[in-house]
């Protein structure tokens, strides 16, 4: 067998893993497939209902379309949560594949993230289609910034997911803890409300959460009436680079251990 260069090997492995993960996600049957794509709609609809129930239909009239606001934030947060949970189990679930020496553990995380991005892409298209049918105003204020916000969020999720995935390989409790925590995060991440709508004391506390900055950034980029006055881009950068370095450092040190675990 003629030796191959590292880059073609990496690309071939990630492609194989991506297609395999996608195949597994699609092989869950019609009902499973339906829920993969319908669940986000159900959840967004539920949160809109909760909001209407709390504030009342009249109180919820904003100058922008609130359903669009919720959908934009929720899809982004949902992607973060899915990347985090699929990265958490990436090493332990793919252990059997490490008997092929070209499969490096990090490839499995990368492939899983690509699958999540692909599914998020389809969910976005479905939401746009439904919004179009409902004749909502869907035009974003700055499409490039929305994309940038989503991509940045992917990098952030990858960094956090890598650290958690490595931790979970050696201590399973870490994965469980993160699972519970990420559910709580949804409420505390300004997914369903703009930060300006809550009292300043609450704003100050929530702004420690890096996800709040991501949500505010994405909301501001999509919705004309909102701006990014609360977003601290340096803070977001710190929260991206720090876990990325910790993750990479741990990974380089522990790669062999993860393979032969």
């Amino acid at each position, binding site marked *: 067998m003629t030796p191959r260069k590292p880059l073609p090997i990496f690309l*071939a492995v990630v492609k194989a893993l991506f297609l395999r993960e996608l*195949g597994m996600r699609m092989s869950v049957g019609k009902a499973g497939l339906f829920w993969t794509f319908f669940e986000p709609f159900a959840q967004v609809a539920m949160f809109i209902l909760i909001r209407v129930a709390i504030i009342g239909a009249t109180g919820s009239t904003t100058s922008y379309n609130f359903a669009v606001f919720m959908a934009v934030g929720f899809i982004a947060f949902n992607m973060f949560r899915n990347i985090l949970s699929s990265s958490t189990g990436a090493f332990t679930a793919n252990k059997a*594949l490490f*008997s092929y020496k070209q499969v490096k553990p990090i490839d499995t995380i990368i492939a899983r993230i690509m699958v999540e991005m692909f599914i998020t892409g389809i969910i976005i298209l479905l939401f746009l289609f439904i919004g179009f049918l409902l004749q909502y105003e869907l035009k974003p204020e700055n499409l490039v910034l929305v994309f940038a916000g989503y991509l940045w969020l992917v990098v952030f999720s990858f960094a956090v997911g890598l650290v958690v995935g490595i931790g979970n390989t050696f201590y399973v409790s870490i994965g469980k803890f993160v699972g519970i925590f990420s559910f709580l995060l949804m409420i505390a991440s300004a997914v369903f409300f703009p930060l300006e709508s809550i009292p300043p004391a609450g704003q100050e506390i929530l702004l420690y959460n890096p996800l709040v900055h991501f949500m505010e950034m994405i909301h501001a980029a999509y919705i004309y009436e909102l701006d990014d006055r609360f977003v601290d881009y340096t803070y977001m950068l710190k929260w991206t680079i720090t876990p990325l370095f910790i993750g990479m450092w741990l990974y380089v040190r522990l790669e062999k251990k993860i393979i032969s675990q």
Partner: protein
Amino acid sequence: MIELKNVTKYFRTNQGKKYILKDVSITLPDGNVGILGRNGAGKSTLMRMLGRIEFPSKGSITSPNSFSWPLGLGGGFVGNMTGKANVKFVSRLYGKNEKEINDIIAYVRDFSELGDYFDMPIKTYSSGMKGRLSFGLSLAFDFDYMLIDETLSVGDARFKDKAQAALKKKIESCHILLVSHSMNTLKDLCQTGLLVHEGQLHYYEDINDAIARYEDINKGKS
């Protein structure tokens, strides 16, 4: 050629370090090598190290040759994917294009004789069926060395003969490192022998010498 330089391998256990290899330096010339040793001596660990999925605690193993994945009993398959999907996956790992992948699928489907099971999830397979798939798949690739760990005993008598014949044909163009407890299989397929014993590797140019030494050890002579 395989070169081991000052290779030490141990596992940390609750009872302290368990040594598999202790400061081993040896150069193995190309050939079909039968690997012998008692249970737990470290034969499988050695195979895994050659397949680069286990790593020496100290020292290095180098070789200009390519190695297959260690062919064990059905390892590396994903239970809820079909046999065909698994074959496709491994072919993609090795960077094969669509045409080559189709050829490999056709070959493995034919060789493994799994019939309808080939298109069914692996979790429905018996261990013999998994072994057949695994063995057929490995034959579809060209390695310099095939790492075979006891897989020749899979399947029924007829399939065993077929597998043995296919392997004999295969080793005309590649080499094997074979772990087996069947001395006849070792004599049949290998010319040289490697004995794993008490943290050391002993190389024999004649497999019969390796077998004789191994039998001495088993009788309690040291």
